[in-house]
């Protein structure tokens, strides 16, 4: 199939025509092609397909919350062409069998590249390294390893993990949360938790682990990725580590770029998330961290839950928020419209860099002739009201429900195949490999 995208602003710059043939970008410039399906894109921004370093697809085990199919449909609608599926499924993705299963489910679904993340430790138990080599050598070619949801808190085990993955060009993605300092924690510890009488989740519980891990990464010369950074202090530590030359990358979620712990005053568990929503100062520090390059990437931490897990009192509610279908709009709202980032920067933090961190060869590539046609067309002038009940994800737990947001994904091309057209899901790509 041939597609001709007409007059799209490449990375928000010059308007250009883009001809896609057989999954690749065939030509750029002033083009015409009688056989191609034409997509009028005047006023739209063309980005490389988004790459999420941090998604929970829930399958296997919690297909009531999400499946690889529904989660990757949500991803496509959000402009993504690749997602990293976190390892906390049931069974845990701690061996080649499970990661290959998830990889195959993603391939068969055909909406995005599903790249499984392998667990660092067996069963996320924090005791014994999982078979990292077998997962790296599997068909899923796992390069990112994480016990996400649980911190690899044992310092010696973390050191060994950082060292060991060097053999497979891997990276450890750490969920930084000191367990003893967060026992029973329900929300950010600060002025709001003091009023609400909720057990606090101190910033230091995140920052102390990040400080330890960057020093470990320096000591053993390994790569460290810090998941969902949420505090101003974490940004400072990572800035310091980068200045020192330590190989650390960091991620921030859309919700931590916008929402604060003031939301918890509603006691609505849709705002319950790990790490918790922090203070206004933290939100501003995170945005500044993205703007100056301290924070490298946006990770959605898309965490769908069935309604009963949120339609309850705060204390027993599940932690997590959906995010795939709102991420780009939140990025535009918090970083582009505030003047902190250009669209070229958006391409860097949502596609180029996350693909590099995950070692994805076909993703996050420049928009250039001969490159794989993983592309997203965004209408930056659109405005829409978030309605979780119209989303592709099974999760209805969007903290942005009812908000009016800027920017809408008009089309997503996944290896040259349109998975989204006119802002709606089209058809999956039929894998021919």
């Amino acid at each position, binding site marked *: 199939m041939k597609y001709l995208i007409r007059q799209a602003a490449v990375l928000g710059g010059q308007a250009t025509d883009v001809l896609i043939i057989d999954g690749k970008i065939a030509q750029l410039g002033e083009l015409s092609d009688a056989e191609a399906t034409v997509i009028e894109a005047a006023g739209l921004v063309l980005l490389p397909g988004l790459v999420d370093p941090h998604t929970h697809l829930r399958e296997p085990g919690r297909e009531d919350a999400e499946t690889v199919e529904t989660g990757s449909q949500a991803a496509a609608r959000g402009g993504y062409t690749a997602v990293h599926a976190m390892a906390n499924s049931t069974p845990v993705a701690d061996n080649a069998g499970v990661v290959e299963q998830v990889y195959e489910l993603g391939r068969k679904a055909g909406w995005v590249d599903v790249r499984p993340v392998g667990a660092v430790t067996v069963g996320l138990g924090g005791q014994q390294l999982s078979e990292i080599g077998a997962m790296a050598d599997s068909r899923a070619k796992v390069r990112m390893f994480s016990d996400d949801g649980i911190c690899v808190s044992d310092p010696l085990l973390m050191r060994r993990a950082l060292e060991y993955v060097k053999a497979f060009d891997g990276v450890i993605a750490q969920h930084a949360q000191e367990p003893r300092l967060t026992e029973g924690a329900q929300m950010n510890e600060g002025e709001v*938790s003091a009023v*609400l*009488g909720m057990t606090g989740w101190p910033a230091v519980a995140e920052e102390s682990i990040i400080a330890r891990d960057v020093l470990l990464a320096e000591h053993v010369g390994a790569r460290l990725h810090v998941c969902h950074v949420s505090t101003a202090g974490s940004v400072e530590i990572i800035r310091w580590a980068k200045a020192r030359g330590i190989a650390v990358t960091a991620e921030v979620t859309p919700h931590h770029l916008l929402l604060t712990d003031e939301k918890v005053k509603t006691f609505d568990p849709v705002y319950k998330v790990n790490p918790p929503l922090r203070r206004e100062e933290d939100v501003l520090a995170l945005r500044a961290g993205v703007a100056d390059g301290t924070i490298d990437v946006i990770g959605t931490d898309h965490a769908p839950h069935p309604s009963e897990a949120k339609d*309850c*009192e705060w*204390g*027993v509610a599940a932690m997590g928020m959906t995010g795939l279908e709102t991420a780009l709009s939140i990025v535009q709202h918090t970083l582009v419209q505030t003047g902190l980032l250009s669209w070229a920067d958006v391409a860097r933090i949502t596609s180029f860099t996350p693909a590099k961190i995950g070692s994805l060869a076909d993703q996050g590539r420049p928009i250039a002739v001969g490159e794989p046609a993983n592309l997203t067309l965004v209408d930056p002038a659109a405005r829409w009201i978030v309605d979780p009940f119209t989303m592709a994800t099974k999760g209805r737990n969007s903290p942005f429900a009812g908000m009016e947001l800027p920017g809408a994904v008009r089309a997503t091309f996944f290896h040259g195949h349109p998975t989204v057209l006119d802002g709606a899901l089209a058809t999956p790509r039929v894998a021919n490999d």
Partner: protein
Amino acid sequence: MKHLLSTADLSREEAIAILDIAEEMRETGTRQVKKLPALRGRTVVNLFFEDSTRTRISFEAAAKRLSADVINFSAKGSSVSKGESLKDTAQTLLAIGADAVVIRHPDSGAPARLAATDWIGLPIVNAGDGTHEHPTQALLDAFTLRRQLALREGVSPLGRGLDGLKIAIVGDILHSRVARSNLWLLNTLGASVTMVAPPTLLPVGASAWPCKISYSLDAVIESGVDAVMMLRVQGERMRAAFFPNPREYSRYWGLDDTRLKALEAKGHDTLILHPGPMNRGLEISSAAADSPASMVLEQVTNGVAVRMASLYMLLSGDLI
């Protein structure tokens, strides 16, 4: 007033109106026939997810004195560990024909959640939620203070606040819903509050509260206060290393006999309050608990009156 969830929601006028109605209710409690027909035919459910005999029987007495029917529903532990969600439990009560729900729950915010959702459309009274709030306790404490001071001055308590009073709240502030509800209400009524506790039992973030904070009970007693509210120290706090041991806690933050003498020596007629149940010998000595300045039993009596006023205002229409 649609619900009674937090004293922070109450304006000065609303708070004084509740206290004034409670005065009338208290008068009926001194009659031979203590019952009023106000809520005849209405059903109040006491939904208690935490053990609390004292608060539950106080609410039960309050509802019965207003001629309401009372259903007690006890379910220890969280709703989930019981296998039924709070939503289903609440909707069951609605289906049974409840007109108001008095809820005690171990999770901060559970009553607010019940009030904010479309699960049931009933008036909700927070009878203590987690470490968040216990508004009727604060109302009965304010009622007790106001009434005692008016008696002392030989004036009517009606229509008055607590303007200019100096109150010390002493003990486990971190885990105390009583302390939080009292802080907001005492401020609304014009009193000034000092929180006294070991630093481990004060929340991070308390510095933003509208009160003074002190680590020294002796210094606060020396400064002269109109009332001290002693908070119960829970056994589990001792095991979680908030302080070295009960003796040391008592030595620094307990209202022991020496401090009772110091209070009396100030000649300030300082009132002593405790929400109960007391740990005699830990946060309060027997001499202090049994002293003429102790309001402990008066608080219990007043609790019924304040809860009658609260239920009356929620269930019999719009006085405010």
